[in-house]
């Protein structure tokens, strides 16, 4: 049978794998560097160099997007394309699709790199990119899907190894999540409003957000683990049976865990409990994966001492175990009331990303590069140094964020014998943790330094590799021929499955587009009339709040917890955010909650505070926003904005929509005159963005 050489020989496409590896390395450097910059700014706010493009609230989304989609994404694509060809014993379905996938993805990253620092943001976590980029992501993802499922269709092995199942779940689910969460109506080339508002937006966003963690940072990496750990250790997986059981349970349970991001919020209790219970159930399948990964190394433990690849992979799986232990723990409502909005969550996330995603990717790349370039790793020692420096970097990061989160969380909760807050001044709780921000920046630096060692090592390895051996062939005699799906019928059958999947996606997209507009009309609030929509100027100010990314540090959700209520006022109610597109409940309180900040301070206070926060709060770590008082507000576009809002069900009358610009100008003039009266030197701030922003902030909690 092995003589059927012409028929059964296949040349794998490793060129595309190499490209994705280069991209992962380059974007990885960018993502980590921007992360370090953001971390430094929290310790030392001046590190934004007074440039609006480098301000924390703009680059923090850049960091998360770059780390997840640029570094993580390219690493996933490299690993999936490399391992799938070998597991399926066939070349990728289409070279052109591979190429479009690669370049399209890099262009999307480039677009993110330009638009986010410029302040074009939807301010929904991990979904900040504006609508044209959202469309591009959908198109490129579908191309990836066709290429991948096409490869499965033309495969020459009947059995689908477990890694492939993880890839399938990834591709399918990410497509659905992205499409559902990105339904938005454009108001300009780079701005849009989501069709969902308030709690609806919150729920969809965290359904997406948590599953981005599940299906972008977990399932594909588990697939990679199931391929690269056995390969690197040269040992079969500990239990193939366990891999199958934990795969199916993982994909069924993960999708329900999203509401744990909204615990103790205004979201109905039963939905919170649902999210909590499913999160706790996730313990089992997650640890199934971890145990399976680690025990694969049984009999090969000595390699952990010597082989840097195994070191990275083993520690990655260990961090996966830690993160997936911590995640369900944090989803318990009482634990969450302490941890939510604090740095504990930041630590948790980075244990997963730096430890699990980062180290698994590093191990995979150390394994792949010498193989793909037909050479040996340039330096084992450099790789070992990378491991140790990176490892201690993560530990310092993790521990400092635990300490910071728990410290601040306890200070927020602390109530004295008189029933008063022990630390009523928010900034007190910030000053306390600033030293830990320095520690975190040191941890991040170490991680980056380790990565730079890897870049040097890879550069040396590749440049010293023998030239002219770009592609490799596979000899089919290695596999049992009865497994080869050579007949036309089998191919047809497989293609059928591909089409089923594509049709499913098409139907889903179609029905969503039909269903969603009906959701835009709020029917769920009996006392809806109590809340008035934003005035045109307030809406304009809100768009600035969204554009600047204020949600990265400020929440707008007072939880149903005594210490939250004492500090910020009555717990937030659902109807208060019913016209909020996007919702801005937030997930982190580096600064205080703003849900009821309206009327708490005079307009002048807000003005001074935005221009120089230290003038009001000497120890504040908030960046200054001096450009807001010299950029003019675009009144014209308000008519279009309000008409879109009206179409989405906000009860504006036609007159308000038609005169939105005039009304806003009048509102702005009033506020401006009042400020001018107090300080005649402010004559230049007429019609500037800061006036709209103040108007919005003063409306919070006042409707």
């Amino acid at each position, binding site marked *: 049978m092995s003589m059927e050489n012409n028929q059964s020989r296949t040349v794998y496409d490793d060129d595309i794998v190499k490209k994705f590896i280069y991209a992962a390395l380059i974007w990885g450097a960018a993502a980590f560097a921007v992360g370090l910059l953001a971390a430094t700014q929290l310790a030392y706010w001046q590190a934004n160099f007074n440039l609006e493009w480098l301000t924390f609230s703009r680059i923090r989304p850049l960091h998360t997007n770059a780390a997840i989609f640029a570094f993580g994404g390219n690493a996933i694509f490299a690993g999936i394309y490399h391992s799938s060809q070998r597991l399926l014993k066939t070349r990728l379905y289409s070279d052109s699709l591979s190429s479009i996938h690669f370049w399209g993805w890099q262009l999307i990253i480039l677009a993110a790199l330009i638009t986010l620092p410029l302040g074009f943001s939807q301010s929904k976590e991990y979904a900040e990119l504006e609508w044209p980029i959202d469309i591009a992501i959908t198109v490129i993802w579908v191309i990836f899907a066709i290429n991948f499922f096409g490869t499965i269709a033309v495969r020459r092995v009947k059995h689908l190894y477990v890694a492939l199942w993880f890839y399938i779940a990834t591709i399918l689910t990410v497509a659905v999540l992205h499409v559902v969460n990105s339904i938005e109506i454009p108001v300009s080339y780079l701005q849009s409003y989501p069709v969902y508002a308030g709690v609806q937006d919150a729920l969809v966003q965290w359904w997406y957000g948590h599953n981005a963690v599940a299906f972008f940072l977990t399932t594909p990496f588990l697939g990679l683990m199931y391929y690269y750990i056995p390969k690197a250790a040269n040992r*079969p997986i500990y239990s193939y049976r366990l891999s199958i059981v934990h795969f199916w349970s993982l994909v069924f349970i993960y*999708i329900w865990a999203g509401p744990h991001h909204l615990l103790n919020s205004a979201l109905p209790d039963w939905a919170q409990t649902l999210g909590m219970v499913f999160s706790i159930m996730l313990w089992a399948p997650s640890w199934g994966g971890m145990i399976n990964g680690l025990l694969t190394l049984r009999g090969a433990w000595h390699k952990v001492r010597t082989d840097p690849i195994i070191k990275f992979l083993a520690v990655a799986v260990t961090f996966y175990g830690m993160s997936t232990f911590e995640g369900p723990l944090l989803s318990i409502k009482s634990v969450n009331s302490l941890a939510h909005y604090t740095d504990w969550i930041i630590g948790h996330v980075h244990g997963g990303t730096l430890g699990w995603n980062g180290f698994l990717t590093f191990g995979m790349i150390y394994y792949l590069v010498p193989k793909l370039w037909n050479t040996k790793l340039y330096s084992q020692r450099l790789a070992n140094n990378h491991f140790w420096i990176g490892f201690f970097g993560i530990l310092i990061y993790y521990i400092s964020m635990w300490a910071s989160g728990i410290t601040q969380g306890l200070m927020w909760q602390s109530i004295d014998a008189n029933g008063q807050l022990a630390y009523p001044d928010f900034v007190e709780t910030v000053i306390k943790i600033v030293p830990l921000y320095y520690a975190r920046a040191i941890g991040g630096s170490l991680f980056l330094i380790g990565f730079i060692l890897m870049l040097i090592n890879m550069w040396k390895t590749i440049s010293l590799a023998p030239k002219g*051996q*770009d592609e490799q062939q*596979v000899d089919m005699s*290695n596999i049992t021929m009865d497994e080869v799906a050579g007949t036309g019928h089998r191919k047809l059958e497989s293609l059928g499955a591909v089409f089923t999947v594509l049709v499913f996606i098409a139907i889903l997209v179609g029905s969503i587009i039909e269903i969603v507009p009906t959701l835009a009309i709020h029917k769920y609030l009996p006392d809806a009339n109590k809340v008035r929509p934003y005035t045109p100027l307030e809406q304009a100010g809100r768009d600035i709040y969204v554009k600047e990314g204020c949600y990265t540090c400020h929440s707008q959700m007072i939880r149903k917890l005594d210490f939250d209520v004492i500090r910020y006022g009555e717990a937030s109610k659902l109807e208060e955010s019913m016209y909020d597109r996007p919702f801005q409940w937030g997930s982190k309180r580096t600064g205080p909650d703003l849900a009821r900040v309206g009327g708490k301070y005079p307009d002048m206070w807000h003005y001074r505070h935005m221009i120089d926060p230290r003038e009001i709060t000497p120890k504040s770590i908030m960046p200054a926003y001096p450009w807001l008082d010299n950029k003019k507000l675009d009144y014209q576009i308000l008519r279009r904005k309000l008409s879109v809002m009206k179409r989405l069900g906000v009860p504006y009358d036609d007159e308000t929509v038609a005169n939105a610009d005039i009304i806003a100008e009048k509102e702005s003039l009033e506020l401006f005159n009042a400020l001018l009266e107090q300080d005649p030197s402010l004559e230049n701030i007429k019609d500037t963005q800061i006036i709209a922003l103040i108007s919005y902030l003063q409306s919070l909690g006042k409707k």
Partner: protein
Amino acid sequence: MLIIILTISISLLLALVFVGAFIWSARSGQYNDLVTPAHRMLIDDKKEKISGKNPEEDKYVDGK
């Protein structure tokens, strides 16, 4: 809370697709053999130089 209905129905739909995939995989014999797949993936493909004209230069690199 129509949005809950939407997300739940989409989640259920996804779950159904996974159920379908599971049934397909179980029926088509994907899990009949839980031993060899784990071992088979370890066997490396033979590697050959494409550009090299000298067949003696062909070599096994993977898996030693």
